[in-house]
């Protein structure tokens, strides 16, 4: 069994020096271990070897997938260290926690982490690998109404033969200026546990975070809390350098803003199926589909006790994602095939070939 698992991990790592594009093309499946999952479980650096990864994108990104970032990971004796530049934590981004249920944060408060830096250190301990990451960002613009932004967080992760776990703590998350007021994040907590039982991989995730926004007079304009959990199971079939996987999860979330008197709840049962294939010595092709099972696809938004949206079950959300990885010796260039995805155009042409481009160099 152990031998099979080692082989399985080895097969996974053939394609694992991949990028944001790989994660998107493979439906963010929970069993993936690659240069992007390191940001969730730092111990994943032990499944990858030494590398440099670069993700194309904007200097001031607007979504989780269009921000420029990069990371280098090197072995130092029995330990490994990593340095990441530019990666935006979900809890400190305008597409994540730095927005309100009523819209963008007021004035200039709607900024992402500014020049975020992450330092990772990990080591082996018997059959277990562990690692920790320290996250930091700051900004002080005296010319723009003394706009200040700062964030600090810690991620801890461990991975053993049959299980993996991670813990993410958001310690500091503040934005303020002299005109718009102050945004203060509460202690953010995220935890994950995964367990391999025979051919099934079980996962559980829980997250809890929040923030408050005060105007310049000190009056609270937002007080937000969020809790979410999901449990899931999946399996994968590996054969001849290719992998096909499928799974499902049960997800539930509650978002609440007591000042806006708005509450959003959702419960869903998303399914996913995906594949990753070594199509040629220089080419890896990937694809996946996700869709929520309508037996459980409910969401409701209430403001002042009145439902403003209430879906039971909700609208179509089928998403097909596809991508390719081009391998040139130690370098892999990944991209998503823009024909697919949430705004899929069905077209594969010069304008819609590779997007979300990333490159990884394997030392």
């Amino acid at each position: 069994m152990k031998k099979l698992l080692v082989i399985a991990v080895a097969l996974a790592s053939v394609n694992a020096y991949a990028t944001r594009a790989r994660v998107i093309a493979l439906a963010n499946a929970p069993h993936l271990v690659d240069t992007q999952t390191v940001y969730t479980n730092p111990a994943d650096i032990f499944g990858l070897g030494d590398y440099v990864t670069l993700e194309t994108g904007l200097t001031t990104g607007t979504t989780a997938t269009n921000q420029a970032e990069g990371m280098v990971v090197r072995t130092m004796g029995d330990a490994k260290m990593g340095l990441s530049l530019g990666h935006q934590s979900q809890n400190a981004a305008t597409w994540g926690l730095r927005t309100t249920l009523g819209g963008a944060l007021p004035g200039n408060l709607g900024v992402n982490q500014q020049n975020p830096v992450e330092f990772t250190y990990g080591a082996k301990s018997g059959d277990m690998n562990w690692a920790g990451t320290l996250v930091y960002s700051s900004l002080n613009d005296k010319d723009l109404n003394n706009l200040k932004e700062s964030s600090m967080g810690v991620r801890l992760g461990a991975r053993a033969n049959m299980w993996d776990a991670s813990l993410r703590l958001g310690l500091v998350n503040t934005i303020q200026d002299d005109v718009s007021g102050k945004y203060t994040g509460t202690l953010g907590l995220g935890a994950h546990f995964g367990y391999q039982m025979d051919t099934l991989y079980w996962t559980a995730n829980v997250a809890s975070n929040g923030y408050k926004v005060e105007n310049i007079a000190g009056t609270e304009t937002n007080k937000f809390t969020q809790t979410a959990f999901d449990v899931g199971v999946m399996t994968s079939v590996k054969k001849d350098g290719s992998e096909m996987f499928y799974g499902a999860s049960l997800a539930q979330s509650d978002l609440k803003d007591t000042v806006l008197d708005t509450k959003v709840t959702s419960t869903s049962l998303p399914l996913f199926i995906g594949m990753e294939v070594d199509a040629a010595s220089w080419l890896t092709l990937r694809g996946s589909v996700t869709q929520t099972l309508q037996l459980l696809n409910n969401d409701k938004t209430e403001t002042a006790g009145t439902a403003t949206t209430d879906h039971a079950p909700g609208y179509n959300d089928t998403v097909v994602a596809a991508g390719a990885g081009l391998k040139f010796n130690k370098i892999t260039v990944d991209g998503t095939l823009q024909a697919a995805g949430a705004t899929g155009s069905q077209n594969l042409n010069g304008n819609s070939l590779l997007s979300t481009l990333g490159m990884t160099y394997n030392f």
Partner: protein
Amino acid sequence: MKALLFLTLILISEATLASKSRLTSLSQSPHLIDSQSVYFRPLGVFELDPYLALESGLSTPVGLNDGAEASLLAVPATNSRVLVSIGHQDELIVAPRLFLNAFAASSLRLQQNPVHLFYGYKDEDTNYVASASYSQMNDRVGNVTESSGLISAGVEMGSLQLFGTYIVANNAEAAGVKMNGAGGGAANVFYNLDSTTFFLTWNMTRAKSAISEIENEFHVAQTGQLGFVDSKIKEERDYFWGGQVIISRVDCHTRASIDCSQTFTRTRFPVWFGVEGQMEPWLIVRASITQNFLIDQIKDEVGYPAAVVPGANGAVSDVGAGATSTVVGFGAGFKFGRVLVDGSFKAATSQTVNQNDFLTQSAITYNF
């Protein structure tokens, strides 16, 4: 004969783990068996190897063929097949909704997160298949709902295939318009004789809607097809040609809340020919052409809009020979080991293959 048929099937199956673009490129020829044709020839699952097919498209489709979807065929035992599909918009369900949206300016939604499940069983010389599909959505604040249910069953005995589909439920509501399309269905017969496939198909859909419980539209559409396709495999290339008589009829029972007893009828005789061949180990090229031949009689007593009923022109009409109908399909499949990437060349309609008009309806199929 059996050995020849078996060899034919092997040659076909290399190229058949294909997609919407394959059907488009080959003029929807009824002899095709692949990951898309299984929706109207489900007994074809016994001729396909296990696969995962992903079709690119929109999460919120507005038509029959522009949505994202995927299907997975598994072989749990040597004599059984299981096919699961998500996202596929079924024509029998969606066509009446599109009809009412275009004709009566309603805003009914298509199927939302549909799921299809097929099960096939082989018993000595007879193959059986049964399937069911389901979709549902309920927006309680916007009062927008939809639900659908389809069941079908079929049997294959030697060269003869029979299967039928029944629409158990087809409901949709939006902006005060309630639609009920239950009770329609389809019946198909396919017979293989040497290299020729003969087919007889019939389908019926009901587009019935009401506003404030008062019926405002009720139209019943029926289509019958009788035809043949001759397909010859030579040197890994499939050359095929065929013809069919298509008789379409739409009976108007209620139009704009007023009783109606007019009909639309159309009789036409399209012919087509095409080729599909593996030109290189990594390249499959497909091309076809279809056109009505001699017969295209249209009698429209209602004046259905062109967007609603093929052949209609928005006015009461009696046409002896319809408008030009030549359509060229052109596409390719790129093979990388077990993976096939398909697409239709936009040159088929634009005459240009360039960076902007390369592949449409792209899809990836993995054969495992």
